[in-house]
């Protein structure tokens, strides 16, 4: 009898262990279904949209104020067409369905093809051979602001991003040249032709990499204040329009002589010489850390196509690269979205929010199915530092390069930039800023390609955005 049971204890140990592993696997599968699957299946490589589309009428994408940005229409023969009522106005952020999905269309493809209508109603629809209504995706986009940005940019190439600083909600995002997603299939060949320099399919707001120009001085100033918390106000520089650092000549814009400057006036007047001087005093590895906190060289966890902004200064970089980089030239490359995030972080007292474009998903009768909450990236800079920088950015408007914004009825903080991108001195016009300065509701980032100075070309656009949103 004893021999018969020999090893039974070991068998039980093995059995319990294996059963436990299987329990884990069943749990994992349940977890995958409940938590991960929504994100997993919403992938352009998943070819099951057509299958879902047979049972569900793809839902609408609407703006925060209820304007329909994309919808599916069915003709008498039962053929579905995705329609974009505003043509190219929302083409990059809302995206397209055909020719590889992009934007919100891609990001929310499966939610749009899922119906959370009343189950009984759905069953009834199925039994009658009718489609159930797909869920509606409600974006964070403000129709009027988007329209203002779209019109203000006009025929120029460039991009506009507007964020709500407290939440990271994308209020508007325009990239020009744009294309009409209603006709993207017919025009595909022309749009993708090598000789086509418009690159209309590119979302310049998130994928366009530009030299930041003087807007980058915001970060340089932050680093200087952080390194000299008590003495930064004692900074002094005498601008003669041009200066030389170890043989590297730095000119101010148009060789303007700014005269005697402290940090705030150097910032407001965007004096290159003063910032090159500041650069030579900075701890470069610390500066690099700061830029990486601001998501340079880092993945941003957003659900749309974007490029990483690049910061390449290291301890070993030479003085020429250093002085160029701290004033926004050099090898630094930035997307308009990243620049908007910098402005929004200063506006939000140093706390960075991750930008997002979808507020919630609701079913056919407006019940919320999925609510997207604002996501914090963390306190990137201290409140006190953010406050100091904000004051300097206000000075840009009151006494510096953005004085034309003074005419508005609320206070604005900002920074202009003119980013040279070729040897002939042609430059992209930049403006980043936010308003009202005391309690910011909107942060913007504007770039106009190959236009000239920021004060001349980007500020008028900013002005129209602020007027539209706050006026």
């Amino acid at each position, binding site marked *: 009898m004893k*021999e*018969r049971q*020999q*090893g*039974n*204890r*070991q*068998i*039980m140990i*093995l*059995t319990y262990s*294996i*059963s436990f*592993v*299987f329990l*884990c*696997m*069943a749990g*994992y*599968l*349940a977890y*995958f*279904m409940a938590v*991960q*699957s*929504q994100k*997993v*299946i919403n*992938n352009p*490589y*998943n*070819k*099951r949209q057509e*299958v*879902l589309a047979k049972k569900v009428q793809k839902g609408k994408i609407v703006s925060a104020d209820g304007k329909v940005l994309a919808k599916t229409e069915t003709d008498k023969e039962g053929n579905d067409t995705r329609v974009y009522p505003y043509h190219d106005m929302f083409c990059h952020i809302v995206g397209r369905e055909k020719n590889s999905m992009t934007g919100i269309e891609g990001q929310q493809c*499966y939610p749009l093809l899922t119906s959370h209508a009343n189950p009984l109603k759905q*069953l009834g629809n*199925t*039994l*009658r*051979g009718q489609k159930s209504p797909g869920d509606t995706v409600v974006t964070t986009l403000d129709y009027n602001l988007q329209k203002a940005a779209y019109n203000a940019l006009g025929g120029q190439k460039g991009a506009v991003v507007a964020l709500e600083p407290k939440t990271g909600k994308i209020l508007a995002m325009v990239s020009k040249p744009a294309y009409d997603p209603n006709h993207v299939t017919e025009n595909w060949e022309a749009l993708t032709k090598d000789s086509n320099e418009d690159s209309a399919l590119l979302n310049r707001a998130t994928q366009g990499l530009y030299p930041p120009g003087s807007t980058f001085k915001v970060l340089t100033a932050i680093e200087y204040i952080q390194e000299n918390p008590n003495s930064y106000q004692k900074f002094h520089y005498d601008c003669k329009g041009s200066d030389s650092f170890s043989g590297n000549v730095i000119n101010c814009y148009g060789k303007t002589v700014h005269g005697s400057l402290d940090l705030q006036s150097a910032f407001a007047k965007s004096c290159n010489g003063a910032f090159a001087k500041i650069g030579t005093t900075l701890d470069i590895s610390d500066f690099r850390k700061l830029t990486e906190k601001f998501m340079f060289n880092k993945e941003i966890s957003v659900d749309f196509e974007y490029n990483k902004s690049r910061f390449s200064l290291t301890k070993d970089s030479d003085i020429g690269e250093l002085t160029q980089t701290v004033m926004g030239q050099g090898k630094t490359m930035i997307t308009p979205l990243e620049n908007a995030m910098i402005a929004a972080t200063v506006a939000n007292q140093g706390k960075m929010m991750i930008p997002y474009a979808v507020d919630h998903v609701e079913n056919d009768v407006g019940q919320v199915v999925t609510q997207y909450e604002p996501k914090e990236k963390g306190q990137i800079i201290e409140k006190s530092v953010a406050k100091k920088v904000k004051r300097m950015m206000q000075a840009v408007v009151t006494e510096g390069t953005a004085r034309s914004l003074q005419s508005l009825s609320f206070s604005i903080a900002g920074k202009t930039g003119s980013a040279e991108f070729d040897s002939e001195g042609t430059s992209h016009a930049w403006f980043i800023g936010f308003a009202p300065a005391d309690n910011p509701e909107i942060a913007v980032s504007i770039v106009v390609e190959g236009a000239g100075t920021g004060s001349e070309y980007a500020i008028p656009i900013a002005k129209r955005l602020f007027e539209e949103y706050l006026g």
Partner: protein
Amino acid sequence: MDKKEAAKKLIEMFGSLNAIGVIHSIVVELSKYAIILLFAVYTWHCFTVFFGKNAERKEAVYHRQNKIMYAIHFICSLVLYLNSLDGKVVLLYLAQFAFLFFVNKAYLYVYQNASKLVLNNMLMLLMIGFVMLGRINQAYAIRQLVFAVAICLVGLFIPLLIEKFHYFDRFGKVYAVLGIFMLALVFVIGKSIYGAKNWIVIGSFAMQPSEFVKIIYVFFISAMLAKSAEFRNVVITGAIAGIHVLILVGERDLGAALIYYFTFLAVLYVASRQPLYLGAGFGAGAIAAVIAWKFFSHVQRRVTAWSDPWGTLDDEGFQVTQSLFAIGTGGWFGMGLGEGLPGKIPIAESDFIFSAISEELGAFFAICLVLVEVSCFILFINIALKMTRRFYKLTALGLAIEYIFQVFLTIGGVTKFIPSTGVTLPLVSYGGSSVISTVILFCIIQGMYVLNCQEEENIEREAAR
């Protein structure tokens, strides 16, 4: 006939668009929930039937399980028929039904005293395989049925065989020579399919020796270790088992190599009752895995496919991401039979059949399927615990471990729980070798149990005299 044509024909038959809509969608939509509900009840019985001692009630439960199986089979076949209006579907259904019914009756007669639940589970799994293969590719379903009929007929004689050859445990090394010879044959006349050189093709019949050898391999280790679990014998057995494993690694059949390795460890642990062996075995296995990962690109590919499938969607991660798309899109209740896209899943008829099942029949169904497989394993273990002779005990255990480990590798692999190793889901996946060896495995365990009961009765009778 494809679905569109079938729909057209239905419209002609019923004269109006509404009739087709009603019939087809009622059946497909309601069948989804009916199948899940039925299978859930079945699975529930798999685990609860042991509570309570009332033999009559147990009989009733086993009968109910049979009825559930026939019901699911009927519903699924009806849906498949409505999707295609193909007369062959009806014929195939009738043939499958006749097979299930016959095996159920005949086995109850031949395997008296054996576990009815094991039999029910075996038929249930075969039936799910039939249905899914019929949905993916009818030709596969037909071949699968032919293999199943053939091997289940053979299975009727296995208890007889075991009874006649009382001294199965005397041939330890003969099994090893035979096994190694068959495995090594692949190097001479083998063929690569799906990157593993583990097939022998004779005419139109391709077979996988490792599927058959895994049974005599268990005979070998059990026979050796039943004799003695002393160190010297363990080393000899381990070395010979190692040769098996190395040949399989050489054939790039990683799944089989793992199954062989862990089966040896488990049997050794039970035979020796020495946890040190288990620890050392796991340690050596971990070191071997790291070495394999460092030096073999095909191992690296599998690991990459597991750790970063989304970054390698087009390449290493292709199979597992397609599998996850299918499982995820199917959702808890599935798309309905014939409503998904199993054609997009690579090797959906074999290694990835679990994903196809989950996509169309739903994740609830798939989880129940996992539980039914676990129930089989627990029943096997139950039998192993009751065995008197050491050789039988170790063999039953070894076969049980082989079975459940294979289930773990395939389901874990397609759900990205572990790296995928490319093994079949026993009895469900398409494949002659796999079905044949698994049915044999089921029959041997049952047969040994029958024999064990007879021997015990004899001993008791002797004692009574």
